[in-house]
């Protein structure tokens, strides 16, 4: 049965699909090839640059198609809510940053590109009227989690032979990817299916009535309707903290002499000020310790 048949996938929705399935397929294959070339490997740096350019091209085509559709739909229904123009900037920075997180051979740079992705995702949250979540995202991810990551990178990353090559000083496991072809095929197949399903169905559930949507309303919801989830979150965080300390602590060998010294009472210290001799002055009044 051909894909354009009205009976396929129920009810002729494909005729109105925004992204033609062939276009989605071609875009995913092109982006998959680009990502495969961009992934860290022992290829020439020029090859990786070409791969990045191919992936960027696929992203641009996808963005252009979606932009044309959004502009056309905004022109046909002028009173409908439109996409914020900042959406395109934030979305592009998010996706490119994520691609660099995955493909940069140096872990510290990966972490920094991840911060970039976090900030642009926070921008997308602000566009969706979730200001509190944007602030929480920046605080928790860029503030707390990333610092932990960078600390662990600095603790565990040993630098090897340094030189002038672009991949010098990197361990072998950072330079060579594991199964890049399979991973790109599986990942971009999934992406194709996702994009196809997302843009296939015009007119799903109608949006329900919009309630108060600010941080105050979020707090009231959290502490009235979703109180149990807040408590569960607290328990999970406590458990994670205890577990992390228990996992990562190191057993330090203590010698017998150290243990004996710890158990003995500390030696008596002469702390009576009157027994402290005072030197360095000829004035006998100053030699007396001032009382009270």
């Amino acid at each position, binding site marked *: 049965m051909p894909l354009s048949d009205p009976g396929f996938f129920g009810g002729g929705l494909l005729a109105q699909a*925004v992204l033609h399935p062939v276009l989605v397929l071609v875009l995913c294959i092109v982006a998959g090839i680009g990502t495969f070339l961009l*992934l860290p490997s022992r290829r020439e740096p020029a090859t990786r640059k070409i791969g990045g350019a191919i992936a960027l091209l696929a992203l641009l085509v996808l963005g252009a198609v*979606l932009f044309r559709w959004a502009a056309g*739909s905004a022109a046909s229904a002028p009173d409908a*809510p439109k*996409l914020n123009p900042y959406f395109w900037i934030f*979305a592009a920075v*998010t*996706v490119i940053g*994520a691609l660099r997180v*995955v493909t940069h051979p140096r*872990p510290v740079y*990966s972490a920094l590109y*991840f911060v970039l*992705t976090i900030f642009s*995702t926070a921008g997308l*949250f602000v566009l*969706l*009227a*979730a200001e*509190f*979540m944007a602030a929480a995202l920046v605080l*928790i*991810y860029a503030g707390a*989690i990333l610092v932990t*990551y960078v600390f*662990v*990178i600095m*603790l*565990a*990353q040993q630098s090897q032979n340094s030189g002038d090559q672009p991949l010098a000083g990197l*361990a*072998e*496991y*950072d330079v060579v*990817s*594991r*199964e890049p072809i399979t991973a*790109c095929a*599986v*990942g*971009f197949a999934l992406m194709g299916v*996702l994009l196809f399903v997302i843009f296939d169905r015009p007119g799903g*559930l109608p*949006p*329900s*009535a*919009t*309630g108060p*949507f600010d941080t105050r309303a979020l707090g009231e*919801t*959290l502490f009235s309707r979703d109180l149990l*989830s807040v408590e569960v*979150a607290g328990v*999970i965080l406590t458990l*994670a903290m205890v*577990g*992390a300390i228990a996992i*990562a602590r*190191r057993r330090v060998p203590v010698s017998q002499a150290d243990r004996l010294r710890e158990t003995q009472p500390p030696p008596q210290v002469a702390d009576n000020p009157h027994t402290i001799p005072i030197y360095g002055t000829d004035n006998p009044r100053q030699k007396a310790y001032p009382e009270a």
Partner: protein
Amino acid sequence: MNELVLQHYLAVGGILFVIGLIGFMTRRNLIVMFLCTELMFQGCALNLIAFGAYHGNLGGQVFTIMVLVIAAAEASLALGLVVLLFRHKNTLDANAWRELKG
């Protein structure tokens, strides 16, 4: 917020998730692998927020708070494990632990 806006945000979330998935499958550095799981969390959180805004209620944001909590817990535990594994074999290579395969 209408259907059109929702679909664009869902597309960005899906792309973010897939990129994180590819990174988790290809990278061999344990730290970068967990960084890629955080990318996948980002994609999920973006989808939740978009759906919450689309339906006009706060359920999506409450779910996203839970996602952030799980991400923080996962990061602390996973990085503790990474430090532990690094002390054992003195490498961050995930292939060094391939005898753990079933």
